[in-house]
Every structure is written in structure tokens, then in C-alpha cells.
């Protein structure tokens, strides 16, 4: 027999929900909350989600397990009074420069202050310092906007096991801080931006580089080219009224041309190039006795994480540059124009902003190969700023010669995509036969750890696909201890892969519990792949032409110079 509890007079069936808050959301009642997130542990700090029981007692919905027969109300005079008081106290301690805040329109504090009709804060405001930590290329921290909900701390520690920030000091002096309150750039931060993805206010945001790009676009002396990563096309549409996961690449290309970019390319061709090089490297390691397991190298936050926490595993990481860097070095090396050339990359990612600044990815004059990285969020704002009616745009195609791509490259944006793309090419190369079914469904899905084993003509290939750095550290520890017999491991820092990158459109906690937005964005990519006639990277004729006319041999000298890199332990 099913069990019920009564919430605001509604009979709610209990099906193992972890708390009253989740159950209420299931029956369509939104209890306000700042510090609750479905993916994180329960903290119970903000007290916004209080409910009242039949005897007038109050308790927090986030930390109460639903019990049969409970009768509660979530919106009473008493609760409204308390919630207003909480909001007033938070606002007294908050820098309220909403009109010029990066999170304006998406901020939970702003939303609740409006919803609860807070028109007067009775307490003096004692937090108006706008000093922020600008030391990182990836994220910006503005402590005066912090409401101490602790989501960033839980994300950084529980999901990412990075431990860059924690609570420090005590009572009214408490704040979120790095060790010794130092710059975030000097902390173990890897720039994944997942803290910003859960921050309900503007206390942690992704660095915005739009102004620099506008400046380049506006200069007639400069040719500005741009590349667009796979995950961007299934995330950006959400901001313009499209369904989660709808592929809006065609419209985005039109928008970018309208904004003034001279050439629009697709990062996908870089991904195909990556697969050709990376599967070649994998086969080489397996057949010639190289270091195994091999880890993927596309994710810059994972690279930072490994350089800091697993220096002994650096030789296991593929030397392939990321698709963004491979395409950038190809574009820059083959550019024949007269004008100065600036290359921009649009990424779902905050760590890419940091990757582009690495010394190894600069040309001989010391200029970055990718001059600027824009997050999906940055581009959304630029489209709005330019006054483009995005939904009404015609679709267009990218520019030649970096236009053609295969289904294998587009799935890079989902956890398991790089693995599947590499398997398609590696298996065909090893067996010399065409694959009947190109889909490796075992490595798909949003689970944090996936494993599969394949028999490739007698050669056993065992693989693991991991997303979230806590999961990565569990696998790395196993590899270090010699307890893992994988040949190939894909690691993405953000849970679910790049579709859930720190630079993607902000998804609030309510939507995070109600909608499988990661899964929907990923399906958008898998659907695009399924519609393609060419679904294997080594069948990309534009890539093969590049080898014939420019790089020479796969894994050869020129390819090594332009498409590979190496890693160094973090200096401490």
C-alpha cells in the first residue's frame, strides 16, 4: 500500500524522496530555499524552507524525511513573517547593486526579495565593498554578495574533491575562503566553474570576456575568426525559449556573423582531428607496450587536477591537445590573410579560459593561439546586447575549410562521447573492418562512473568513463594502486560532461531537481550524431585532406609539433 502525507491540503504519495522539499516539488509546490541542491549534501543553513505542522511547530523541509500521515503547511502567516525576516537580514549583509550585477535576473536573493515583497530593509547595510578576487582566468569571487549558503564549498569538496575553498572564521565574521584567504588562482582551484553553476547569487561568477571580443570585432584592421564547441549548441537555446537540448547551431552561426565575426568555424572538426590522433596514440600504446591506461586530455580542469594531485600519472595522459587547441593551432598555422588575426573560441567551459592562457599554447611571439575564450553565457549576453531576435534567425553553415564534421565529434560534449568516438575509430583501425553498429551505448548516460569491456578480434579492451573529479580521484587512486586493468579512461570534470559545463546557461536548483537538463542536452548531441551520414572521425574527408596537404603522417613530426603537448607537475 502506498503511503501519503498532506502538504498544503494536497495528498502527496511518498516514493522514497529524500526530504519533504523534494516531495513538495514533485506535487508542484515550490518551497523557497537557498542552500539546498539535489546533487549536494543537506546543509540546512538558510532556513527559508521551513514548514509548519499541525501543532504549529516549525522544521526545515530540506532536512526532514517524509513520513506517512504527516500534515504540513508551507505557507502560513508565521512562515511568511520568518521568511521576510531572513531575507531582510540577508539583504542587510549583502551588496545590493543589482542593476550592475552579473547575476541580475538570475539571482535567487533578488527573486525572493521580489516574491516576498521586501520593500524596506529595517537594518543598516554593512556590506558594500565590491572588492573581488580577479586572480583567476576562470571565475570571479565577490565576497560581499555571498549569503553563506555553502553550495560552492560542498560542490568543490563533495563532487569535485578539489578543496579550494571552505568556511573560515566564525559567527558574524564567517566567510567562504581559500587557505589563508589567498587568491583563488594560487589555490588548488581547477577552474571548472561548478561553484558558479550552483551559486544562487553573484558571489561566484564565470569571468566575462565579451568586452575584449567586441573590441576586436569592431577593429577593421583585425580579422576575427571563431570556433564553437559541441555542447554550446545544445545549451544556448534554453536562454532564447528553446527546449533543453535543442540544437541551435545553425541560428548561432547566423547570429555570430551578424555580430561581426569574419569567419565562423566548428570545433567539431578539431574533435575529429583529436580522435584521429588520440586513437592512433592509444593503439600505439596498446600494441607497442606504452604506458596504460591512457587518460583522455580534452578537459582542461582535469589536466589542472592531475598536475596538482596526481603528478605520477601525467605520463598516462594522452599527449593530444584538446579539440579547441588542435583547431586553433591549425587555423593559425594555415592562415594566409594579410590582416592581424584574432581567434576566439566559444566554449561551455570556464576552465578553457585558463587553458588558452597556458604557455604551451602560445605562438612563437608569445601570443595565445586562442586569443579569447567566451563562455556560452558570454555569447548569450552578446547576442542580447546586439539586439538579435535569436529565435527568428535563419540557419546557416560554418565557413570552409573548417566546416565538415562527423557524428563522432559532436558527441564530445556528453560524458562518454570522446570514448565512443575513439572506439569507433580505434576498433575499425585494429580490425580493418567496417563496424556494423557504430553506437557504443554502454558508455552513454549521466552516471558518474561507467565501465565497459570489448573484445576487438581477440584483443580485450576495457574502458572506464568518469565525470566529476571526485569520481576521477577514485579511479586515479585505483590506477596508482595497480588495482585497475583499464586500457583507456575518459575523464570530464563536470558531472555529465561539457553539456553541464560551468560556462553553460545557469540552471537554478529547482530546475535541477525537476528536469534532467544534462540528459536532455546530451540527447540533443546524440540525436545530431544519429542523423549524420558520416559518424566516424577517420571518415572526415576535410581532416584527411589536412593530413595530405599539411600535417603529413598521423602522429608524425608536424602533427606532434602542432597537435600534441606535455604536462608538468604543479609547482608548490
Amino acid at each position, binding site marked *: 500500500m502506498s503511503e501519503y502525507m498532506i502538504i498544503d491540503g494536497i495528498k502527496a504519495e511518498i516514493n522514497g524522496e529524500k526530504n519533504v522539499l523534494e516531495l513538495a516539488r514533485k506535487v508542484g509546490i515550490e518551497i523557497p530555499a537557498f542552500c539546498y541542491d539535489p546533487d549536494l549534501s543537506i546543509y540546512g543553513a538558510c532556513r527559508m524552507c521551513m514548514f509548519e505542522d499541525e501543532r504549529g511547530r516549525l522544521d526545515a523541509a530540506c532536512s526532514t524525511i517524509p513520513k506517512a500521515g504527516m500534515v504540513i503547511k508551507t505557507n502560513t502567516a508565521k512562515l511568511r513573517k520568518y521568511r521576510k525576516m531572513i531575507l531582510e537580514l540577508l539583504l542587510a549583509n549583502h551588496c545590493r547593486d543589482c542593476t550592475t550585477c552579473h547575476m541580475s535576473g538570475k539571482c535567487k536573493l533578488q527573486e525572493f526579495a521580489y516574491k516576498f515583497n521586501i520593500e524596506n530593509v529595517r537594518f543598516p547595510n554593512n556590506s558594500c565593498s565590491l572588492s573581488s578576487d580577479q586572480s583567476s582566468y576562470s571565475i570571479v569571487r565577490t565576497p560581499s554578495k555571498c549569503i553563506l549558503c555553502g553550495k560552492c564549498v560542498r560542490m568543490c*569538496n563533495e563532487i569535485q574533491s578539489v578543496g*579550494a575553498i571552505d568556511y573560515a572564521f566564525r559567527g558574524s565574521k564567517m566567510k567562504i575562503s581559500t587557505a589563508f584567504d589567498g587568491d583563488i588562482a594560487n589555490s588548488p582551484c581547477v577552474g571548472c566553474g561548478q561553484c558558479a553553476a550552483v551559486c544562487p547569487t553573484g558571489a561566484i561568477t564565470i569571468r566575462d570576456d565579451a568586452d575584449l571580443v567586441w573590441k576586436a570585432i569592431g577593429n577593421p584592421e583585425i580579422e576575427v575568426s571563431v570556433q564553437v564547441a559541441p555542447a554550446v549548441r545544445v545549451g544556448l537555446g534554453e536562454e532564447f525559449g528553446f527546449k533543453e537540448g535543442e540544437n541551435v547551431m545553425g541560428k548561432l552561426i547566423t547570429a555570430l556573423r551578424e555580430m561581426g565575426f569574419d569567419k565562423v568555424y566548428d570545433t567539431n572538426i578539431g574533435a575529429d582531428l583529436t580522435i584521429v590522433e588520440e586513437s592512433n596514440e592509444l593503439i600505439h600504446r596498446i600494441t607497442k607496450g606504452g604506458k596504460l591506461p591512457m587518460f583522455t586530455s580534452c578537459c582542461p580542469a582535469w589536466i589542472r587536477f592531475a598536475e596538482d594531485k596526481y603528478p605520477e600519472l601525467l605520463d598516462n595522459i594522452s599527449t593530444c591537445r584538446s579539440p579547441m587547441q588542435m583547431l586553433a593551432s591549425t587555423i593559425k598555422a594555415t592562415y594566409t590573410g594579410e590582416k592581424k588575426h584574432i581567434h576566439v573560441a566559444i566554449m561551455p567551459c570556464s576552465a578553457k579560459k585558463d587553458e588558452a592562457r597556458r604557455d604551451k599554447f602560445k605562438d612563437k611571439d608569445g601570443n595565445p593561439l586562442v586569443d579569447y575564450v567566451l563562455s556560452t553565457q558570454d555569447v548569450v549576453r552578446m547576442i542580447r546586447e546586439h539586439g538579435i531576435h535569436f529565435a527568428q534567425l535563419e540557419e546557416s553553415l560554418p565557413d570552409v575549410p573548417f566546416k565538415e564534421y562527423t557524428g563522432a565529434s559532436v558527441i564530445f560534449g556528453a560524458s562518454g562521447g570522446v570514448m565512443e568516438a575513439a572506439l569507433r575509430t580505434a576498433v575499425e583501425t585494429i580490425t580493418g573492418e567496417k563496424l556494423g553498429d557504430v553506437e557504443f551505448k554502454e558508455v552513454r548516460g549521466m552516471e558518474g562512473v561507467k565501465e565497459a569491456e570489448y573484445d576487438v578480434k581477440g584483443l580485450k579492451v576495457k574502458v572506464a568513463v568518469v565525470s566529476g573529479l571526485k569520481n576521477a580521484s577514485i579511479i586515479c587512486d585505483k590506477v596508482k594502486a595497480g588495482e585497475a586493468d583499464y586500457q583507456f579512461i575518459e575523464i570530464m570534470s563536470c558531472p555529465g560532461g561539457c553539456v553541464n559545463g560551468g560556462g553553460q546557461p545557469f540552471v537554478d536548483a529547482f530546475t535541477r531537481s525537476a528536469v534532467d537538463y544534462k540528459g536532455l542536452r546530451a540527447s540533443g548531441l546524440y540525436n545530431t550524431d544519429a542523423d549524420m551520414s558520416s559518424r566516424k572521425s577517420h571518415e572526415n574527408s576535410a581532416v584527411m585532406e589536412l593530413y595530405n596537404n599539411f600535417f603529413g603522417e598521423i602522429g608524425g613530426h608536424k602533427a606532434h609539433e602542432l597537435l600534441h603537448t606535455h604536462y608538468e607537475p604543479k609547482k*608548490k
Partner: protein
Amino acid sequence: MFDYSVLDRAIEKFGNEEKSLIAVLQEAQENYRYLPKEIFPYLAEKLNVSEAKIFGVATFYENFSLEQKGKYVIKVCDGTACHVRHSVPILEALRKELGLSEEKKTTDDLMFTVETVACLGACSSAPAITLNNEIYPTMTPESAVALVKSIIEKEGK
């Protein structure tokens, strides 16, 4: 070279896990008289906790200090019982005698640290102070200053 042997012994005693952190920090505080910066990365690695977390613990508890404390630590109780029996003048007299303030708690020669504490649990002896964890009951500003002077004299020899 920084001497980590104190930490190694503490970790040996309490175990190399996160839950030993406070106990290990207490040993460190006792031995170095503060928590030197050098111990943070060392403990982070040994106990598998982040430096940010250790910093959080170190700044949460009054007993831990990130700055070196004096050889003689005087704690003036400012709990309710001591407060109503005039503990504040004792604190003021000590600070004046040693040139200290609320912000500057330790003398430049690292001899004395003067702090307040919420309750020493010695309410029957109010107003009370402790000198390196030894209780001195029913103090007056004069007797507190005399105590300090006697130490200075002893150390001067």
C-alpha cells in the same frame, strides 16, 4: 628546515585520518605555540584534507592561533561571574602594563600574550585569570600586574 617531528608523533598517536585533525592541531599549537604556515600543506597531505578546511578549523576555534603566542599566555576570564566582579579593569591593567590592546595580543619580545576567554569554569574564584593554564583566583588589577612583574623579574635574571 622545518621540524615536522611533532606532527609525525601526533599523527602516529591519533591516526592519519581527517577526524584526527583537531587533536593534531592541538599538539601543534602546544608545541609551536601557534600554527605555523608550514604545517598546512604537510597536514593536508598526511590527513587527506584540504588546506582550506584546515584553515577553516584553525580560524573557527579561539584556542588556535595563526600568529605566534608569547611564552606566557594569560587568559582573563570575562564570563558573567567574573565580569560582574570587575574582570575588565584587570584586563585593562594588564594591557596597559604590557603595551597590548585588543588587536595586539602578544608582546614584541614574544614573552606575553593576553587574551580574554568566555568562561574558565572557575566562577567561585571570580574574578579569575590563568597563566599558562594555571588558575589564579580572586584577582585585582594590582595583583595581576604584580604577577606580571614577578615574571619579568624572573626572566630578567
